[in-house]
């Protein structure tokens, strides 16, 4: 193979690679995918949103259990059932603080779950309307009025 031919081959391979990457990237944009592969788009977006809802449901319950665990520890501390080791971080003050933190985490997890469910509902609405809201040139959606 002559050097010139080898260069031409290399250029062609690099160009094909670049075009491939660009095509894959474009294929994954909602604007094109909603035209070219609407069912695949539904599988990807709705599937991900469904998995997220399951994750967030589990997280919400885990946070609730954490709050319950700290509540139980605090109650047992106050009853004198638990004795802290000398170098332990557990004191009544740290337990009260931990309970507040656990409560905040649980509320945050409930919010996250709500957002995940809203995302899933939005994707399902978009699918039912034929992905009109994702396509280029769709009318801008205004801010929701309270």
């Amino acid at each position, binding site marked *: 193979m002559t050097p010139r031919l080898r260069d031409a081959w290399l250029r062609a391979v690099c160009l094909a690679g670049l075009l491939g990457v660009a095509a894959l990237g474009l294929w994954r944009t909602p604007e094109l995918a909603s035209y070219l592969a609407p069912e695949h788009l539904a599988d990807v977006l709705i*599937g991900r949103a*469904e*998995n997220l809802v*399951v994750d967030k*449901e*589990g997280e919400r*319950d*885990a946070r*609730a*259990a*954490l709050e*319950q*665990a*700290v509540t*139980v*520890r605090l109650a*047992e501390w106050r009853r004198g*059932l*638990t004795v*802290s*080791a000398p170098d*332990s*971080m*557990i004191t009544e003050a*740290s*337990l009260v*603080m*931990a309970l507040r*933190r*656990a409560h905040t985490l649980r509320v945050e997890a409930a919010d996250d779950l709500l957002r995940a469910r809203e995302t899933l509902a939005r994707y399902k609405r978009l699918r039912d309307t034929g992905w009109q809201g994702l396509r280029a040139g769709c009318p801008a959606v205004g801010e929701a009025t309270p």
Partner: protein
Amino acid sequence: MTRSVRLSLGALAVVLVLAVAGTVWFAGAAYPAMGLAGIPRDGYRQALERVARSRARVDGRTFVAFDSMTFRPADRGEAAFAWGAARCRAADGATVLYWVSLRWNPGRGQWVRGGVRELAPPGNEIYFGRNVPGQILRARLVLRELFAELRARFREAVSLQGSVTGLPSLGL
């Protein structure tokens, strides 16, 4: 560098790589399925209880009951999830809660552990204040928790091999 030093370093590197690979395989593939073979998809209660009892026994606690339990089939396909908070009793009478989560693996046709952990143990980050403990102690506590979890998994695997038949041999 002499030849014997090079050989020793090479052997040490091989041992380290094998140890890390073995640990990853054990923690990621072997342990999650241990002791759960044969439990059907709708037997999630049995699976959750078996996992909670097994971990509680290894930690020297007694399983009491589940405070909460959820079965959540996936919206599509055969996958499913189950989770719950297990109440256990320590030797000194204190109550300890464990979080247990499982998922149904349709490929393997069995439940596998998603995670088992004690809720709010001493040294947990939930007790950390803004400046207490310091960064070094925080790192030590996190590492200690990580290694304690790994050690508990190994002990549980050994205990399960002794009590349940038909498990893959780990050579432990």
